[in-house]
C-alpha cells in the first residue's frame, strides 16, 4: 500500500506506527527508476541512471563497484539524506520524497541504523553516550544497561567512558556498530565499514556486523569495493558508472 496523500502520510509518520501491510512481500526498501544529477555552474553530472532494486526484511545486500560508480550516492538517497533528481525510494512503505526533512529524520531514528567508513562518532561524547544517542533522541532514558550490554558484546566493556579520540579505529567502529544496533533498526546502512581498517581489525567487525544482522533480523545494505566482504552478503549488486550492471544471489542461510 502506498499512501499518496501527504497529510495522511504525515499523520502516519507522526504516529510512527509502521502498518504491518507496509512491507509488501517483506520488502523494506524499494527503489524505482532512481536517478541523481548534480548541476554545478552549467555543468551536469549524472551520478545515478534510473536504478531499480528491492531489499527484503532481514536480508543482507552488498553494493559493490569502483570509486565513483555511485554507490555512496545511492546509499545516501536510500537513507533520505539527499533528494533524488528522479524516481522514488520507499522505506518501510513510506515514500521518502513525500516526507519533510524532519519526517525523514524521524523515520531514520525509528527504522535505520548507520555505519560509516570513518566511524562518525560524535567526538564530544563518550563511547557509552554515543551509543545512547538514538534512544535518547526518542526520549528513552535510563537505557544505560542496554548500551553497556551491547558495548560488552562488541568487546568494549572496559572502555565505556572513553572519548572517540582515546579509542583506536577498530574500537571506534565497534562503538559505531553498537550505536547502529541499539534501537533495533529494521534496516542498517553500512558505507565501507572496513574501509579505514586493516585486515586484522576488520575481521571481527565484519563478523559482528553479520552476526548482529542475523540476531536482530535487521536488513543490511552494505556498500564496499572489497569483493571478499561483499561475498558474505546474501545478494551482491555490482555498479559501474551509475548503473547496476549485475546482480548475484547467494543461497540464504
Amino acid at each position: 500500500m502506498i499512501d499518496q496523500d501527504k497529510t495522511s502520510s504525515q499523520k502516519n509518520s507522526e504516529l510512527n506506527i509502521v502498518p504491518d501491510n507496509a512491507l509488501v512481500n517483506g520488502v523494506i526498501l524499494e527503489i524505482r527508476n532512481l536517478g541523481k544529477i548534480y548541476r554545478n555552474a552549467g555543468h551536469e553530472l549524472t551520478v545515478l541512471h534510473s536504478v531499480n532494486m528491492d531489499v527484503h526484511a532481514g536480508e543482507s545486500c552488498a553494493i559493490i563497484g569502483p570509486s565513483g560508480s555511485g554507490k555512496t550516492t545511492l546509499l545516501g538517497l536510500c537513507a533520505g539524506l539527499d533528494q533524488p533528481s528522479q524516481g522514488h525510494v520507499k522505506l518501510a512503505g513510506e515514500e521518502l520524497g513525500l516526507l519533510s526533512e524532519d519526517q525523514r529524520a524521524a523515520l531514520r531514528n525509528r527504522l535505520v541504523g548507520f555505519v560509516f567508513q570513518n566511524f562518525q562518532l560524535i567526538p564530544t561524547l563518550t563511547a557509552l553516550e554515543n551509543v545512547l544517542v538514538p534512544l535518547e533522541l526518542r526520549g528513552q532514558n535510563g537505557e544505560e544497561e542496554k548500551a553497556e550490554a551491547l558495548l560488552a558484546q562488541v568487546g568494549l566493556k572496559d572502555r565505556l567512558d572513553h572519548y572517540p579520540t582515546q579509542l583506536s579505529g577498530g574500537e571506534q567502529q565497534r562503538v559505531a556498530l553498537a550505536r547502529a544496533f541499539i534501537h533495533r533498526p529494521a534496516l542498517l546502512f553500512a558505507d565501507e565499514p572496513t574501509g579505514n581498517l586493516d585486515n586484522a581489525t576488520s575481521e571481527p567487525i565484519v563478523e559482528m556486523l553479520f552476526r548482529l544482522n542475523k540476531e536482530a533480523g535487521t536488513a543490511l545494505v552494505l556498500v564496499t569495493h572489497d569483493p571478499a566482504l561483499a561475498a558474505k552478503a546474501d545478494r551482491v549488486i555490482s555498479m559501474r558508472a551509475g548503473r547496476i550492471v549485475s546482480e548475484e544471489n547467494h543461497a540464504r542461510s
Partner: protein
Amino acid sequence: MPAPNSQNYNPPPTKLLKALSHPWVWRMAWRDGRSERKRLSVFALAIVSGVAALTAIHCVKVSVEAAVDVQAKALLGADLQISSREAYETADTEFISSKAESLSREVAFSSMLFFPEADAAKLVQVRGVDGKFPFYGDIETKPSAAWQLIQQQRGVVLEASLMDQFGLKIGDTVKLGELNLTILGVVTKPAPRSSRFSGIAPEIYLNLNELEATGLLGTSSLSFHTLYLKNNNAEQIKELRTTYASKGWRFETPEDRRDSLGKTLDVFQQFLGIIAMVALILGAIGVASAIQTHLNRRISSIAILRCLGCPGQTAYAVYLVQSLALGVLGALSGGMLGILLHVSLLHIFKDQLPITIEASPQWLTAFTTTAIGFAVCTAFTFLPLSRISSISPGRALNNFTAQGFKQQGRSLLAVGSFLFIMLLILAWFNIPDPKRAAGMVVGLAIVLACLGGTARLLIFLARRLTRRSWPYLLRQGLSNLHRPQNQTHLFLFSLGLGAFLLLFILLAKNAALERITLSDMKDSPNIYLVDVQAGQLEGVTTLVKKLDLPVLERAPIVTMRIKSIKGVAVRELQEKGKVPRWILQREFRSSYRDNLSNTETVVAGEWSTNYDKMLTTVPVSLEVDMAKDLGVILGDELEIDIQGVLIQAKIASLRKVDWSRFNLNFFMLFPSDVLKDAPGFHIVTTRIPEGSSSGQLQRELVKQFPNVSAIDLTLILETVNSILQKVSLVIQFVVGFTLASGLAILAGTLLNGRDQRLRESALLRTLGASTRQIQSILVVEYAALGFFSGLTGVLLALTAYIPLSIWVFESSAWPGVFLPLLVIAATTLLSVLAGLVLSRGVCRHSPLEVINSA
C-alpha cells in the same frame, strides 16, 4: 522481522519549543559543551564589559535622579527662587514678601577680596544673604555656628581653598571694598545657589546688610539679585509667576531644578550610554563569532545527529541552549560587575557630590540592563545558529557532496529583523527619542554595511590583482584574503569597527578640548579688568602700563535687552517659541566703537559709523549666528531697552566673530555716538606672560580701584580644564570598556581562523615549508587584514568626524595625519602580532598532530 519498538516509540520533537523542553536537548548541550566549556565561558565574557558599563551608567543615573527627587528642595533651599540682574523695586519686594511665609534676599557679585596679612588679592564671588535662608537643607560650616553668626555680627565665611591659599585662620581680617571683615568660619557645604550663577571663583558669605558699607554695590556689572521664598502654596507661587511674567526675572521651583538637572544628566548619560551600547554590540559580535567557531567544529557532529534521526529544530535547540547559557553567563557577570561599579563609584565620590546619594544597588535597573544585554547578545548569536538548519545529514557520508536542504534566505531575514528590533530597543533605552534612536541604529547599520562592502571589495581585489609573477609567499598570503574560509569579513567587522570607534572618539575629544586651549594664542588677552568706571579708565590703563603689561583692548560696555523684533514684542515671540529663550532673556553687554577688531569681519551689509543723526533709528551690527537665531536679516528693526530708555535700531551689518580668541567681542555693536552717554563701564584687557602671576596686578588694583575685578582667564580655563579632565576621564573609562570588547572579538576572530590556518600550515610543513616561510605567509595575510581594517575604520571615522568638526565644534575639519596614521599602524601591528602568535602555535605542534586532530 525486526522489532522496532513501535508501541513505546516517542519521536524526537520537530518544533523548537517542544525541543527545548526535551531532556535530551539539555543533556546533549551539556555533554557537547564539556570539552570547550572553559573556552566558551571566556568568550561569554566578551559582553561583560558592555553590560557592566550599561548597568553602571543607568544605575548611577537612577540613583542620582532618586536622590534629586527627594532632595530637590534642599538643592534650591526654598520653595521659590526669583533671580534678576537688576535690584528689585521696594514695592515688588514688599508684595512678594506678603506672599511668603518667610523671605530671604541675596545680592551676589564678583569682586576682588584683599588679604592684608598676605598682601594679596583674589577675585571672589560675594554673596550677601539675609533672613533664614536656606529654608530646606543645611549649610555646613566650621565652626558649625558660623552661618548663624554672620547674621548677628560683622564678619565673613570663606571657602576652605581661600584659607589654604593665603594661610588664613579664623579671626583674621579680610578687606572687601572699603570694609574690613573678620573671618568667622569656613564653609564646608555651600549654600544653594541660583543656577545661572556659576562658580568660577571661590565664594564668600556675609550679611546682606554689610554690603552697603563695602561701597561696591551698584558698581559691579556681574551682580545677581535673588529672593528666596518659603511658601508651600503652589497657587500663590503660580500667581507670583504670572504677576511678574513681563519682568526679565527667572523663577525656579524645586521641580524646575529637578527637571533641569535631569536634562543635564540625560545628555551625559546618553553620550556614555552610546559608548556602552557600542561596547555591548562589539561584545555580542564577539560572542556570536565564538559560537560560529564552535559550530564550525560541530558541523560533522550535527550531520551525524541528523543521520541518526535528529530533526533540524532539535539539533538547533542543542546549540541554542548552549548559546543562551553563554548569554546568561556573560550578562549576569556583566550585570554584577555593573552593580559593583555603581556602588563603588557612588561610595568613592560620596563627599564630592552636592547631594547625598545612597550607595545601594538599583536592582530593577540592573536587572533591566542585564536582560537587555542578554537579549542583544542572543539576537547576535542567532546569526551563526541559523546555519544549523542548512547542515545536511549527507555530510556524514564520506565523499558525499550533498547540497543544503533549505535556503537560508528566509531564516536570515527573520534573524536580521529580530536583531534590528533588539538594537532599536537597546538604542531606545539609551536615547528615549525614537527618531534619534532609530538614526543611531541606522547609522550603525551603515557603518557595518560599509565594512561589509569593503570586505567584499577586498576579496574581489585579492582575487583579481594577485599575479602569478609575484613571489610565492606574498601571493599565498594575499590569496588567503579571498580563499574559502577567509577571515576578511570578520577582521573588518572587529578591527575595522574598533579602529573607527577609537579614532572617532579620540578626534571628537581633541576637538572639544581644542576649543578651550589658550597656549598658542600669544597675543590674546588672558586678564580681563571689568567694571572700570569711566573716571577710572585712565588710571587703570596707567597702572597696567606701569607694571610693564600691555593694554591690549579697551571697550565700553552698555547693558541692554531686546524689547521687540520687527515690531513684535519678544514676549509674544517667546510664547510662540520662535526664538531661542536665551536670546530673549539675556541681558546683552554691547559696545560701541569706530573700528572693527581683527577677530571679526563683516559678512553682509556695511560697517559704517556715518549715519544720519537726525533719524530716530540707529544702525547696529549683529553677530551672524545671533541674527540667524533671531530670524532677522539686514534692514530689519529691533527695539532695544537700554536701562529704561528705548531706542530703535536697524540692522546695518552682520559680523562673523572668532569667539575662540578671547578678544573683546560683542553680539551687538553700535557706532560711538549713539551710546556715549548711556550708563555703563569699561573693560580693559591685558596679557600676563605665561608662567608669571597676576598677583601684583591684583594687589595694586584692589588698593587703588577696589571696585575693579580682575578676571584671570588662565585660572578660569584651569578650572574648566580640570572639570573637562574629569569628564574626559569618565569618557575614557567607558571607552576602555569598548576597547576591552573590541579585543575580545579580535581574539574570537583569531581563534575562528586558527583551526583552518593551523591545518594549512601543517600541510605546508609536511610538504617541506620552513617555519620562516610559514611565518611570512601568515604575516602577509595578517598585515593585509590589519592594514585594510585600520584604513577602512579610519576613513569611516574621518567621514563621520568632518561634519561634526565643522558644524558642532566649529574647528578645523583637518584632523592632521598623525592620529589616523597611528591608528592604521596600530591595527596592522596588532594584527601581525596576533598572526605571529598563531604561527608559534603552528610551529610548536607536529604536523601529524595537527592533521590528525582535524
